[in-house]
């Protein structure tokens, strides 16, 4: 059924493209342009130059932090997805009320302010925080541990927890799309539970896994608030560097160049994820 007729349709789609261009493409292009400028004191020099990219690739600190951040975020994406998958399978297996209660519990944190959640984590993770006190009380450790206090480990842990809903939901969606009759068919053809999972459920949930990995990776890469708040001086990430170029160093062109680098990595990861998420035979679309 079509609501729009005549010229209204092309006009509407044109409007949609226009909005998308103005909100996404134009800022991105201006960012790209900015990366080829330079600064002189506090003024931006609009003469094309490669100086920013040169600095980004030659500065040992930049590349070290960049590599470390990519590794950290790949780790976060994989671990979050690994944790999210069984949760999604579990929720998908539930019926009726329990299913919605759990679904609500999973999505509830998304309603809370991001900053509030991080503050909550600070009180959990600190040297005298809930986690340390619990570990001390159970006798697992004798003195407060600094393993999760203001470092990259803390960033890793917090991001995994905060991003979990973004991994659970797409996986759950792809699991829901698998007809129940396929598992029945597999069982009917002598497959046990594990074989059915390995040969039917897992391959058919690939689009969900790919979405979960790319979502969490992109969000972890782009995040600079969490590393700032729980990373401390050791938890320096690429996002924080970019932020500092804009907010502290006032070197927008250099910040833009670093941003372009990050965007390039994200595009590569997205393309990889899309390829891995494809099901042979064109199912799931």
């Amino acid at each position: 059924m079509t609501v729009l007729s005549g010229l209204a349709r092309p006009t509407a789609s044109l409007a949609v493209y226009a909005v998308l261009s103005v909100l996404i493409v134009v800022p991105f292009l201006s960012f790209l342009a900015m990366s080829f400028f330079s600064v002189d004191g506090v003024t931006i020099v609009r003469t094309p130059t490669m100086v920013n990219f040169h600095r980004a690739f030659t500065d040992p600190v930049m590349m070290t932090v960049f590599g470390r951040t990519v590794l950290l975020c790949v780790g976060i994406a994989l671990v979050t997805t690994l944790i999210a998958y069984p949760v999604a399978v579990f929720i998908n297996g539930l019926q009726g009320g329990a299913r919605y209660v759990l679904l609500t519990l999973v999505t509830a944190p998304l309603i809370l302010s991001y900053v509030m959640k991080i503050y909550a984590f600070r009180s959990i993770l600190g040297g005298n925080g809930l986690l340390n006190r619990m570990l001390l009380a159970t006798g697992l450790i004798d003195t407060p541990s600094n393993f999760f206090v203001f470092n990259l480990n803390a960033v890793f842990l917090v991001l995994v927890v905060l991003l979990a809903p973004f991994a659970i939901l797409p996986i759950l969606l792809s699991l829901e799309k698998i007809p129940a009759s396929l598992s029945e068919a597999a069982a009917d053809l002598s497959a046990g539970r594990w074989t059915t999972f390995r040969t039917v459920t897992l391959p058919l949930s690939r689009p969900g896994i790919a979405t979960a990995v790319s979502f969490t990776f992109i969000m972890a890469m782009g995040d600079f608030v969490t590393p700032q708040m729980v990373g401390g001086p050791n938890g320096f990430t690429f996002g924080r560097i970019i932020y500092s170029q804009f907010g502290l160093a006032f070197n927008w062109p250099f910040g833009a160049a670093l941003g372009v680098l990050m965007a390039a990595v994200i595009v590569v990861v997205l393309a990889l994820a899309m390829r891995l998420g494809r099901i042979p035979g064109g199912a799931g679309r």
Partner: protein
Amino acid sequence: MIAAVRNRLVDLRAVGKSYGNAQVLVNVDLTIEDGEFLVILGPSGSGKTTILRLIGGFIAPSNGEICLDGKIINDLPINRRPFNTVFQDYALFPHMTVRGNVAYGLSVRGMPKAEIAARSDKVLDLVSLRHLDDRYPAQLSGGQRQRVALARAIVCEPRLVLLDEPLAALDVNLRRQMQHFLKEVQREIRTTFLFITHDQEEAITMADRICVMDHGKIMQIGAPRDLYDRPGNAHVARFFGDNNLIEGHILSVVEGRATLETPLGQLEARCDPSAGLTPGDMAFVTVRPEKIRILASGTQCPEDCVAVTVTITRKEFAGPLMHLHLRPDAAPSVELSAKQLSDDLAGAVLAVSDLRACWRVSDAWVVRK
């Protein structure tokens, strides 16, 4: 017809299934004989699919026993039962090729690759899909998917193939072809088929035996011809092919012949001596429309016939057959329908108002109301 003596393959003994207060299957007894093509026929909600799912092991019975070769298999999980299913929506694995789908059951069992390939080839040839073996289900037509589903089910050489309304989604022509094809395959591989359908024509075409179901109960089991000629009750008489049912009460029963008092007067008809019909019972005289002949009033009626004076109220031309709606003069509230070969009905006969509908007593059959 020579009835082959067959062994019992699967037995259902007083099997019932309830969901909460809703009883979808009520203490059903059913035997599936080895090598037969058994069709379970019933409207939706009659419990026919429930029977298939119980036998397949997809659901557990609320009460009763399911036996294979006389041994109870209630607790045997789906993947250990030697049955394979053709699902209503085919349930083909969308991410596997035709060959992948067909080979699935064999590779799950850890069969050597060479043997898997050989057996898959054989079955793919049987369903004439070998040339499409690298296609994915999304690239196939409905009929082709249907054949993949069948191939996947029979490649494991199950004791029993369960088919859950597999032709429901196909158009009429393809349906006919597939009915024929399924029957052929069944003969070829000599395997027992349990086929579920709501289409009585399909059931008659394919079945060795038909089990008619309604409201979670088995109404009658028998060869298509038996069900057609000797329905066990009013439901089967009505559901299974067109029929005329004339209500009345029984006056006498003598050796397979009953006399009933009906609005059309006293009618004689055959009946099942073991059905326990006794004088006073309410019952129906049933006569198939094609057994009724229309005669001009002067014409002599053959011997041992029932003749009723009628008026034709409506004529429907249906190709070779003429469908006539008749109103008996003695009882205008009763409507009879008759089917005659169009060629047999001379225009002169139809023009005459004073007509008689006539049928042999041996073509009429009594069922309990």
